[in-house]
């Protein structure tokens, strides 16, 4: 009894030190006992081999010098345990005396006295480098150039891309908006024999017909008013490289014939010229439209469709890629945390289901924007539901997906916020001013602070947008 009474006056674990050392030495992961002033009281053998410090060197030294954990400078986990938290379990890394960075799982729990008051911290550190290595081996290729995915559909696409890179045939990439068609086109070029040649990209829907023809095939001086000098055109620029035609479904019929001729003969006639020009360019085309339907409607030539789709890659929408959502969430989180110099470690347990239950009509691009938005707003170490755009909560609470026809979403994704506005207005029980403020913030984040772009996204005039900015003091 006398011993127990005495133990209340000082750090009671002192009286058990020898026993505890024997106990912790038997534990196969690194264990440290940390005193309330955050100094090492004892470490076990596993911790000695993990950190490189022996227990005599470590005794009495502030724990951050022994653990050398990446979490120490950004918010000491042991201090958090002593102040308020019951338990912390997180991933991190340490740098040992051999100058190796070791990935670890860290667990901290309080040591409490008879009154439940914390009198120290017990920390376990587990080396997970072998697990990481093994994970990489069993998971196989999870990315191809900049395209990331673990789902069976994506793994199949990665295999196909490796094969395509060895051929020189035309490729047609299809898939909903935001599925990564541009990345796939770039990956095919970079991994092909033409990698040292140019990669020329042109959006067939971005220019009026006459300008597009000149842009694609070039023109002779005097071919039309304003043609004061010869222009070589993108097809000639792509000689010995790849020409990537995005939104091929928007190519006017007259130019479809010219493209067909090029695919057949590898030559074309610039505007106003009688001499054919040869160009050895590989054609990769992409569209989010249904070309079969367009052929039936007579707006796309069937023979061109067949010539383009020598090899066809259909990119799956994100909602069909299963665990890839989680993978991409973490990938973009790391990317934006680094970009914005934030120390965000992950998503909170209640924000993950919100992200996973959303249908992502804008696919990977939309997921990327959502994570960028959340990282911008997040002031903590993890992303909470309130950091996510409010329309994600709507889709969960209302029990309806944000889009009712995800397969045909071009109109939704082109004006997503306008669509959401109508959705918000339908829910009278929500605080409209709060939602409107959130929408403006979202629009600004999406358009990277461009006010004209934000106004356009919201479907508002500039004056309305500026008035609302002033109203919500967002200017």
């Amino acid at each position, binding site marked *: 009894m006398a011993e127990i009474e005495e133990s209340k006056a000082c750090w009671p674990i002192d009286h058990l030190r020898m026993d505890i050392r024997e106990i912790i030495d038997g534990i196969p992961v690194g264990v440290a006992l940390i005193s309330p002033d955050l*100094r090492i009281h004892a470490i076990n053998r596993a911790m000695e081999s993990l950190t490189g410090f022996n227990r005599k*060197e470590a*005794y*009495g030294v502030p724990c*951050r*010098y022994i653990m050398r954990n990446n979490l120490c*400078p950004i918010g000491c986990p042991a201090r958090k345990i002593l102040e308020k938290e019951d338990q912390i379990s997180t991933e991190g890394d340490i*740098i040992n005396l051999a*100058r190796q960075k070791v990935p670890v799982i860290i667990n901290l729990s309080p040591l409490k006295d008879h009154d439940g008051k914390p009198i120290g911290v017990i920390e376990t550190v587990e080396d997970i480098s072998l697990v990481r290595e093994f994970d990489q081996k069993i998971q196989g290729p999870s990315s191809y150039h900049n395209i990331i995915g673990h789902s069976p559909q994506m793994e199949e696409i990665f295999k196909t891309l490796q094969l395509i890179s060895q051929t020189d045939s035309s490729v047609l990439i299809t898939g909903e908006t935001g599925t990564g068609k541009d990345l796939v086109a770039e990956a095919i070029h970079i991994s092909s024999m033409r990698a040292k040649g140019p990669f020329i990209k042109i959006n067939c829907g971005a220019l009026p017909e006459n300008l597009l023809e000149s842009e694609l095939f070039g023109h002779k001086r005097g071919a039309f008013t304003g043609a004061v000098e010869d222009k070589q055109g993108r097809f000639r620029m792509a000689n010995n490289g790849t020409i990537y035609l995005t939104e091929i479904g928007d190519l006017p019929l007259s130019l479809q014939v010219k493209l067909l001729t090029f695919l057949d003969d590898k030559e074309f006639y610039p505007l106003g010229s009688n001499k054919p020009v040869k160009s050895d360019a590989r054609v990769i085309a992409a569209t989010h439209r249904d070309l079969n339907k367009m052929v039936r409607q007579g707006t796309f030539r069937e023979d061109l469709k067949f010539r383009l789709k020598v090899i066809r890659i259909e990119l799956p929408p994100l909602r069909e890629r299963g665990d890839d959502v989680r993978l991409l969430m973490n990938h973009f989180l790391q990317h934006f945390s680094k970009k914005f*110099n934030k120390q965000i470690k992950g998503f909170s347990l209640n924000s993950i289901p919100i992200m996973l239950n959303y249908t992502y009509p804008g696919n990977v691009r939309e997921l990327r924007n959502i994570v960028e938005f959340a990282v911008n707003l997040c002031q903590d170490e993890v992303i909470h539901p309130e950091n996510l755009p409010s329309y994600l909560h709507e889709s969960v609470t209302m029990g309806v997906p944000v889009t009712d026809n995800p397969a045909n979403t071009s109109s939704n994704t082109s004006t997503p916020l306008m669509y959401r506005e109508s959705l918000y207005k339908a829910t009278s029980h929500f605080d409209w001013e709060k939602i409107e403020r959130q929408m403006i913030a979202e629009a600004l984040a999406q358009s990277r602070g461009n006010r004209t772009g934000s106004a356009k996204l919201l479907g508002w005039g500039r004056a309305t947008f500026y008035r609302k900015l002033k109203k919500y003091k967002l200017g």
Partner: protein
Amino acid sequence: MEKILITIYEEDVAPRFDLSSVVFIASLNDKRETIERKTIVLTSASPEELCHMILSQGITHLICGGIEDEFYQYLNWKKVEIIDSVIGHYEEVLDLFLKGRLEQGTNLMFQKTQG
């Protein structure tokens, strides 16, 4: 002229080189006396930027805590002398360095244990 850079955290040598956002630089004359002292706060912690700063500032000696081998080898190759795994108040550490007694793994917070 010798120029010493110490990565610091609060008043001590920073436990990790790659996470240091504050550095102390001391310039010495030929008699090994300090002629200039300055503390620089970086906008963010980045080992690459630290390496760049060390080279651009003409640092001859780096004193730090834990450093990853990649950066150690790089700076070593660039002829920067590195004394790493140092534990202690940065002024005391500098003092020890100037006396020629600082070495890799110097622990000024060492407490004698009973065990």
